[in-house]
């Protein structure tokens, strides 16, 4: 194993290379470009034996990946923001077709106004597409998760697409020392993709033809639901195998930090978790019992893990770097939904933070924990709060 100083984008590209992706179809978009450039370099130098289709849009990128996967090729693409939104139709298609396409999405704000900075609205709004979605905290996690994603997605009892995300710039462009696993290690971990059913001239089949209401559409959808439910255990199993090989793991579906005896806990997805950990250590030194639960997987949702947390924590603050207009942050509503079946439920507050790349500083996080302690003593002040919101002076 070798350590390299690389950013999240290069880590994603290394992940695809080590996984031996066979077909890449990709279209450039800021801040994802370094991924597709690096993969192009790997292919051009012969380090990566893959066909690289320089498609004319993200929509075609996903179409080409689905088609290539239907032939039995391991596929990779990467995108961000508007590109992911343009793919939306085909994200549904990929899961409906049970093609285990693996993608990296750089979490970037959605226009207008134009913003290329971190925001998770793009991926969160793909919630219902039947994709597994994972949120990385570090560059190393990004690389490792890409490789693990292939193993989960391609498992014969799963066969669903997955994407892993990295926050724009905070991860995509931040350099960290990253352990690059040896190719032999990855080869031993991830067998070649060889689906049982594929486009094959010796065994012709129609893929995705018409199904009437009284026939099999509903049952085929139920099979996807079952596979997605199974993926929870699969993700844990695959991560355990990875840990045995590399010593690294990331906490399964819900990565918890100092929550065992915590009174108040913040829930967060993405790169801000690192900042939160730092704040926790400082507050702990002052005797405050604070913790973090990092949503590593949004789909499948860590329902049981959230419930287990809710059984012993008094107050939970859910941070959302996205918003569902007309309701609340998506992570907030889902965490609440998971907790509803508990007899004694914790109080839950929504903190809308970091929209459009606004910095989530230690000071901000400190404020959130103060707020949670106040809620613990005085009760809920307000259910939702947009944090660090500038309010123009009315004159």
């Amino acid at each position, binding site marked *: 194993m070798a350590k390299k100083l690389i950013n999240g984008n290069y880590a994603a590209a290394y992940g695809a290379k080590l996984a031996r992706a066979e077909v890449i*179809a990709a279209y450039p978009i800021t801040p994802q470009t370094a991924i597709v450039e690096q993969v192009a370099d790997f292919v051009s130098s012969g380090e990566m034996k893959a066909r690289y289709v320089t*498609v004319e*849009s993200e929509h075609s990128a996903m179409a080409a990946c689905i088609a290539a996967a239907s032939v039995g090729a391991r596929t990779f693409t990467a995108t961000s923001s508007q590109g992911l939104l343009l793919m939306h139709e085909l994200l549904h*298609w990929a899961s409906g077709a049970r093609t285990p396409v693996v993608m990296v999405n750089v979490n970037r704000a959605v226009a207008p106004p134009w913003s290329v900075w971190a925001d998770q609205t793009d991926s969160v709004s793909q919630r219902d597409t039947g994709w597994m979605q994972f949120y990385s905290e570090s560059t190393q996690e990004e690389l490792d998760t890409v490789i693990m994603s292939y193993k989960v997605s391609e498992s014969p009892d799963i066969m669903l697409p997955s994407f892993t995300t990295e926050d724009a710039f905070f991860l995509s462009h931040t350099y960290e020392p990253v352990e690059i696993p040896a190719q032999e290690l990855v080869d031993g971990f991830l067998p070649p993709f060889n689906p049982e059913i594929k486009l094959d*001239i010796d065994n012709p*089949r129609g*893929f995705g033809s*018409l199904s009437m209401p009284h026939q099999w559409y509903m049952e085929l959808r139920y099979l996807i639901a079952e596979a997605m439910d199974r993926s929870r255990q699969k993700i844990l199993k695959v991560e355990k195998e990875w840990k045995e090989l590399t010593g690294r793991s990331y906490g399964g579906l819900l990565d918890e930090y100092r929550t065992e005896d915590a009174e108040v806990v913040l829930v967060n997805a993405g790169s801000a978790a690192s900042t939160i950990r730092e704040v926790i250590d400082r507050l702990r030194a002052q005797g405050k019992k604070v913790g973090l639960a990092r949503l590593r997987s949004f789909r499948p949702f860590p329902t049981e893990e959230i419930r287990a947390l809710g059984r012993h924590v008094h107050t939970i603050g859910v941070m959302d770097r996205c918003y569902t207009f007309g309701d609340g942050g998506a992570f907030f509503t889902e965490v609440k939904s998971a907790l509803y079946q508990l007899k004694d439920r914790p109080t839950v507050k929504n903190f809308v933070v970091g929209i459009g790349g606004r910095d989530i500083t230690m000071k901000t996080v400190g404020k959130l924990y103060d707020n949670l302690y106040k809620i613990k003593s005085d009760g809920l002040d307000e259910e939702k709060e947009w944090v660090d919101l500038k309010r123009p002076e009315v004159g």
Partner: protein
Amino acid sequence: MVKTPVPAEENVAPGHMGCPGCGACLALRLALKALGKRTIMTVPACCWAVMPGVFPYCSIKVPVLFTAFETAAASASGVRAALDAKGQKDINVLAWAGDGGTLDIGIQALSGAVERRDEIIYVCYDNEAYMNTGIQRSSSTPIGAWTTTTPVGTTRNFKLEPKKSGVEIMVAHRIPYTATACVSYPEDFVKKLQKARDIRGPKYIQVLCPCPAGWKSDPEKSIQIGRLAVESNVWPLYEVENGVYTVRKPAKKVAVKDYFKTQGRFRHLDEKEIEQIQKLVDHDWETLLRKEENAQKK
């Protein structure tokens, strides 16, 4: 028995859901005779997304990937890339799409695949409107035609714009091979497909397919109507190989009005309107002959 270049091999089973007299049905039957079993198809939303039948049955005897409306070409590119990656050779990748899926919603992906020189055969089976959804206008609907979204009414709101030319768009991409065809000329269509198969790079064939339901024509007369389309020069048969045009000249000349009167979709047109369209057809024909001539001079 008549000697014909059309192979006897059948790769479309009879149990399909096409309408009586459907030209598109015949088109695929001919195409898969020409290309044979070593073919993988991509089929977007179009009549042929429905006609093969209901899951788990499929009347097409080669592998078919049904895809989203605008992705026939990109999906074909993906299939080809995967076959290349897997080292599987001598397999035809056939994108099979209607005129709306090709010239409207799918034109971006088609343009991309052709510009990239992806090794695919793209066939647009052209029935000149969105027939699967019930006869709505496409950019391939000919000038003068009634459709459900150009319903004539009291304001003479029939299609006022000329048909978009898929083949000329492909020529502008410097495609190695492109051609028009018509199901009424099966030998010609089969020969063009086989020629396309043996040329490297992307190939595009647009085959005119009479549609009794959408053209308001007699199902028995589909073949005859296709012939009239060619003989009237409304749909000239020609091919363009690396920029060189070869035009098939009809043995007899037919007036546009004689083609139009076989179809209810043109019946609202008065003599003056038909005369204007005749002039347009004559002009396009002359232009086509000049293109053929220019290429020969070089």
